[in-house]
């Protein structure tokens, strides 16, 4: 699997988690999606989203990583770095 493919797959998995947590089946994620693009994204749903990602990928985020999502591309890279290490 090339790096590009794995990112695509993880982005899809992220999209499934986002649809569930933000309760919006119309969400379409790209690497450029930001918190401002998703209406239900507040501090509590942000935390729920991180916890759901932890369950989905079997990883753990540190406090300093939660709450500073620049865009979804950044989040995908963060997930990637944790799966690889």
């Amino acid at each position, binding site marked *: 699997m090339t790096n590009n493919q794995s990112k695509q797959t993880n982005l899809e998995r992220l999209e499934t988690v986002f649809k569930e947590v933000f309760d919006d089946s119309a969400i379409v994620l790209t690497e450029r999606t930001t918190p401002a693009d998703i209406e239900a994204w507040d501090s509590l749903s942000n*935390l*729920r989203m991180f916890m759901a990602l932890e369950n989905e990928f079997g990883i753990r985020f540190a406090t300093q990583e939660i709450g500073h999502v620049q865009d979804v591309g950044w989040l995908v890279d963060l997930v990637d770095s944790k799966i690889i290490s």
Partner: protein
Amino acid sequence: MDHSPWSFEQLPWLPLPSADFARLSDALPQLPCPERIRTVCTLAGSALNTDQSIRLARRWRKARIECPRTGLPTFRLAIASNATLGLILPCIEVSALRHGLHLEVIATDFGQTMQAALDVNSSVNAARPDAILMAMDHRGLPFLPGFDPEATDSVCETLDHLERMRDGFLRNGCQAVIWQNLAPTPEGLFGSLEPMIPNTWRWRIERFNQGLIERLQGSSDRLLDVAGLAMAVGLHRWHDARGWQQARLPFSTACVPLYADHLSRLLAAMRGRSRKCLVLDLDNTLWGGVIGDDGMTGIRMAEGDPVGEAYRAMQRLALDLRARGILLAICSKNDAEIASRAFREHPEMILRPEHIAVFIANWEDKASNLRRIAERLNIGIDSLVFVDDNPVERAQVRSALPEVAVPELPEDPALYVTTLLAGGYFEAIGFTSEDRQRADQYQANATREESRAEHADLDGFLQSLEMRLLMQPFDALGRARIVQLVNKTNQFNLTTQRYDAREIERMEQDPSKWTLQVRLLDRFGDNGMISVVIIDKRADGWMIEAWLMSCRVISRRVEEAVFERIVAAARQAGVEVLLGSYVATERNGLVREHYRKLGFERLSGDDAASIWRFRVADHVTRSLPMIIEEN
């Protein structure tokens, strides 16, 4: 299909949600109302995690707008908290449905709990909630922030602070109070010395919890035992520093459904909806093996055999529950003679025939047999918990009788006891001497039923019971049982008006009320307090605002004796008219004609609610087969 591994937070006594859960919850608005409510209750009855609960709660909030009459009793709960409730609220709404309640929640604004308590016009007080839950986290209470060996004890001050809040809520509009104790913190500064060092968190929380229990003794306030719950989960799993720091979540997200279920049990118990009877299967539930195949010597329940001990533990639990007032019944596909012989003769059996109120072993379907058990005990189908190792039987009963609680059982019998208790079906809000004797009383009832058959004419039979009724006004001694009876009786209950301990206490002295508590003794034993009447002495006549009686003593003409007493008291007071009110519920059809049978005429109303009148002058004294003693 199976919960494995067994994990308390995942509600392993509940069936796993259907694979279709998301679709079914999305489709709720398309269903007609009755089915919509049935479906949401079924979905809520499965082991939903936090995200699933939030999803279902959101769908239900929208879907219920078009169905204002849910048919479920409404409980209006206010919550005062110094933590984030965003995850907790939807989970509570869902778990309340699981326990047969329609919940309306009012939350205080973050950090505004004392203001909410003291202000008559706060959103909480203005809503006049059925109860206020004081869900306080230790990190937001007036404890000192850190460890200071020189500090004076802040535990009492903290409890005083909360008591002021409680008094405010009660004074300004809340009907009842639910306290929470505090989950101990998992870490310590001193290791094993921790509990002995004043002002450590461990020490403070222990003292707080102890002090709270002392203050709650004899009070009608309720306790949600968060400390016990957190310890059962494991303190490291319960607490979540990151969740607190990020969003002021009071405990781990994974534990929210479990917390919500425990709260809902308590609310259901406060509404008189706890289960009353444990119905047990036999083969591979109470003993290992199949008695029809393996025989008396082949089934396993011996001390010293690990498999046998697992089943013994189940029998021991059943007996302990019986001592608590829970009825036991057997419902098994078996030859009746072979099955009952084990109870009589097997030397290792802990349960014996005299412990079982109804014993049914036959080859009919279990749902019909469960209906029969409820009928014979004169209790509602929704009072039953049915335990069976066979998933097919469980599924059949769940679909035929959704009102029966049917816990999932894991493969391993060593987990049976844990799972059944984790389900919390027998949540209690009090424990009286009546509870202790209840199982015996039902047993005696069964014996009475048998002897009824020997007496062709009813009065002859009733005479033979040598009944004695003791009647007296409300008093402090009877208060706990009066409150219990008033809040638990559903079938013989004319108005199903509930009163809490404080209201009952007030009536003891209230000159505008006439009250009666009735105790029944007979040849077979003491039935305890079995009937309660509350009359409002109005100018236009005495209005019977509450009249209820335990189902155990139906068909014994007790209600007629009570009526004689009411008429005598009315006469003595020079009252000419008695008024009776009947308010129909799903469960009190039994007394629809109660007032007509006593000679009342209907003044107004319809099948749902009616007012009845009786002229004292028209009364003809009855001769009744019992002795009446008055105080």
